[in-house]
């Protein structure tokens, strides 16, 4: 941190555009599926053909209300769509149907966990709008092409209040927002495919000053890493501009990942006047209390509540709880395994969580809101029980898991077929220990001479001699007594 940065306080507000995972577009029946051949999911409506008219997708409104409720917003009983007018080749009608004066959701907040404690971040509004198409610039071609598959895909724009004071807070806010949208099943949190996008409004002010400084808008920040980097860069840049006695220009800046800096895209002074007005093709969106209540009642547990429950009821660390609750299917899988584990849930929570976090999450195929794990939750529970009962060691358990996953069979079957039951027979282990001690007199002498670290060497030799099936506890005890340590 430079001295200049220390004298200025960043003020950050994020605008997130999240795709609502409906099967069809916001105003027509075209598919929203990603990755289709260009212009294969289009019709008169999303191509903006003369005479075509929008019809609102009810499911998109339902999803957006879910967002509003999850963010603690007031859901407007009567909201309106408005036209945002501007020219761009990817915008087929010459206007985007969005919401302006009367958005669906307003005045909410979420809480983020920082080291200093929880912090409340306001949500100004969360409104519904349609996505634009995509301009394509084939390399070497003088012409550009437009793909309208994305045109009309439903988005919720979540405008956060300028309550964030650091890049770290911004990243935390973004993670929490993403986890919430995924938990309520309306968004797959995919930054790379652009179904979850973020713009940042950043300004700095001298520490202690109440008024906000002039802000810039940062675009093209499509990863959590870039959010931090772009904001940090911008805070440093603005601080040094002010420190030099100059004024920050209000402008839109693009993040350049390769160069690790932001650069101006267009100046806001010459920014367009979007001439918003209520869309006369769409009557006001009226939602009744019963509809909102139903959505509220069907709302799944939000990540913050789930984390709290994992910590309080299951005794997990806040770190483990956060990792598990970061993806709804991971948390579901963990809970399913724990349920299978049965009676002593609290006792099984930590080892099951360890399995999920250290092993299964790493091999899981996670695609958007879907996650496929190497073994069914019931098999994971069974595996941990085999460990608990002393039937197999943790080391063997890892191998059993691999084989169970590969063959698609239960861990118990693998253990039985391969005869992997742990050797707890004291006599057999003792024989092995004596053999090892007899075979390594030099090491024994060194150990007895004080090189206690060699203990592991003997354990390893004994485990090898028992093909990994020796009960580690028994091996430890016997070696200790035989070596006279």
């Amino acid at each position, binding site marked *: 941190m430079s001295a200049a940065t220390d004298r200025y306080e960043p003020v950050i507000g994020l605008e997130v555009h999240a795709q609502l995972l409906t099967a069809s577009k916001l105003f027509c029946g075209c598919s929203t599926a990603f990755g289709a051949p260009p212009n294969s999911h289009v019709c*008169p409506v999303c*191509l*903006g*053909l*003369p*005479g*075509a*008219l*929008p*019809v*609102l997708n009810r499911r998109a409104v339902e999803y957006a209300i879910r967002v509003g409720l999850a963010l603690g917003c007031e859901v407007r009983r009567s909201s309106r769509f408005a*036209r945002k*007018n501007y*020219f761009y*080749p990817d915008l*087929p*009608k*010459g*206007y985007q149907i969005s919401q302006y004066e009367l958005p669906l959701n307003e005045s909410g907040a979420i809480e983020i966990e920082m080291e200093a404690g929880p912090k409340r971040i306001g949500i100004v509004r969360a409104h519904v709008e349609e996505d634009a198409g995509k301009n394509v610039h084939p390399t070497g071609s003088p012409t550009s092409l*437009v793909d309208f598959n994305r045109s009309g895909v439903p988005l919720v724009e979540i405008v956060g209040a300028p309550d964030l004071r650091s890049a770290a807070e911004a990243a935390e806010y973004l993670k929490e927002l993403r986890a919430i949208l995924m938990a309520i099943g309306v968004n797959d949190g995919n930054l790379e495919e652009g179904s979850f996008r973020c713009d940042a409004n950043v300004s700095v002010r001298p520490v202690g000053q109440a008024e906000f400084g002039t802000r810039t808008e940062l675009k093209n920040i499509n990863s959590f890493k870039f959010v931090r980097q772009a904001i940090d860069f911008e805070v440093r840049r603005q601080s040094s501009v002010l420190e030099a006695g100059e004024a920050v220009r209000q402008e839109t800046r693009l993040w350049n990942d390769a160069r690790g800096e932001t650069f101006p895209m267009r100046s806001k002074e010459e920014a367009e*006047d979007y*001439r*918003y*007005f209520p869309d*006369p*093709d*769409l*009557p006001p969106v009226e939602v009744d209390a019963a509809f909102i209540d139903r959505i509220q009642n069907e709302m799944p547990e939000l990540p913050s509540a789930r984390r709290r429950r994992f910590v309080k009821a299951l005794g997990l660390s806040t770190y483990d709880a956060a990792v598990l609750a970061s993806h709804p299917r991971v948390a579901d899988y963990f809970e399913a395994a724990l349920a299978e584990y049965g009676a002593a849930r609290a006792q099984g929570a930590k080892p099951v969580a360890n399995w999920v976090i250290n092993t299964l999450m790493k091999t899981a195929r996670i695609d958007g809101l879907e996650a496929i794990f190497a073994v069914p939750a019931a098999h994971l529970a069974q595996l941990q029980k085999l460990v608990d009962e002393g039937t197999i060691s943790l080391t063997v358990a890892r191998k059993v898991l691999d084989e169970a996953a590969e063959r698609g069979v239960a861990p118990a079957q693998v253990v039985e077929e391969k005869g992997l039951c742990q050797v707890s027979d004291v006599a057999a282990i003792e024989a092995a220990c004596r053999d090892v001690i007899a075979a390594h007199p030099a090491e024994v002498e060194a150990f007895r001479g004080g090189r206690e670290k060699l203990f592991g060497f003997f354990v390893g030799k004994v485990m090898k001699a028992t093909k990994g099936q020796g009960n580690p506890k028994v091996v430890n005890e016997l070696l200790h007594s035989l070596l006279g340590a």
Partner: protein
Amino acid sequence: MIDLCSLTAVELADLVRSGEASARAIAEAHLARAHAIDDRIGAFLRLTDQKALEMADAVDCKRARGEPPGALAGVPVGLKDLLSTKGLETTCGSRILEGYVPRYDATVIERLRAADAVFLGKTNMDEFAMGSSTENSAYQITRNPFDPTRIPGGSSGGSAAAVAARMVPIAIGTDTGGSIRQPASHCGVTGLKPTYGRVSRWGLVAFASSLDQIGPFSRTVRDAALVTSVIAGHDPRDSTSAPRGVPDLLAALGRDLGGLKIGVPREYFVEGMDPDVAHVVRAAIARLAELGAALCEVSLPHTEYALAVYYLVATAEASSNLSRYDGVRYGLRVPAASLDQMYARTRAAGFGPEVKRRIMLGTYALSAGYYDAYYGKAQKVRTLVCRDFDEVFGEVDAIVAPTSPTAAFRLGERVDDPLQMYLADVFTLPASLAGLPAISVPCGFVGAPALPIGLQIMGRQFDEPTVLRVADAFERAAPGARRSPEVLP
């Protein structure tokens, strides 16, 4: 031999159903007449002979197979070029859409097709329906069949002239501020603008979305009722289409006006109005009393603001609706070095002066800093205009007034004076702003050569039956108000 071109839609459909005439013969007769006389009128932008004959043959085949032909069996229909027709060029009277062939049909087109109508071609219009004389077409002028030196009215001038000149018994038009009623009045035919929301706008190329409505031109009120019953009704593809049933419109006809209370608004008989026109309209209104209606004077105090409100609301919506003509996906593109230049050159070359004028007016009305003073205020005053009607319709069942303050004016007379041109719609705008059903029926003539005058009948929202009932009663009581243009054979 009967002259097929002088028959009504009801009569033609009966002939087809009974087998007394084939749809093909009817189509050929009308095509022959259109080809013979339209070079003197200019009603059609494109006659689609082949399409018409295919459709007619399909109707004849259907009948031959023993299937009952539809309500408009074999009836030739002209279509305003503002309606999206699959496979048929649709230009909206604009250079910017020259060569544009839609890939889908408007709902109205689908419904006409399902009723076994036969499409004869696309009719001329003011570019994007902006105008009152059809002189704003990028392609041609249309002449008034009663006096070829005069305008047919607009913007649906081609449709009105085609029906008046008996090239078709039915033509479809659109009305945003009077674009069906005013040309109907000038061409001596019947033109109905249904209630906003009664007829689907899906496939109607938008001028002003909160005002646009599709309706028929015909030579009788019965034909207007028949066609409206075919094209009306809820359409899930238009969110502003009313989800309500359509009453039996034909059942409203053939009655007298006993028990009806009809209001005559004093604001519609004002200074500056042609006294001859006022006289003809007053006489027509008196006739309604003879038919059993109770007349009373009413007041619609905000009438004088309707013109200003309309030219703010309609232009604002138009400025946005016409943004899609950008040279990117269809229609005209004038290549240029940069994207912004391509937009500017395409739109400069593609739009005519009136369209540009309205885009600029509308853009201004919506601009930051002006929105509240113009668009916002216009919406408030629009509410007052609607409230005027609500109050009067608490007292009366229908309102009658002139359709236009004058008879058809001369070609070129007002092209350089947009304000004078805008005044041609002063009596039709209020019903458009309030979304009310309104019809214009011929009610007499003025001058020599005689020029037709229209009587406008406005009703409560969705009360097309009363509007049609009054119009039909008047039509039957005043046969002299309807004649064919003398200048045409």
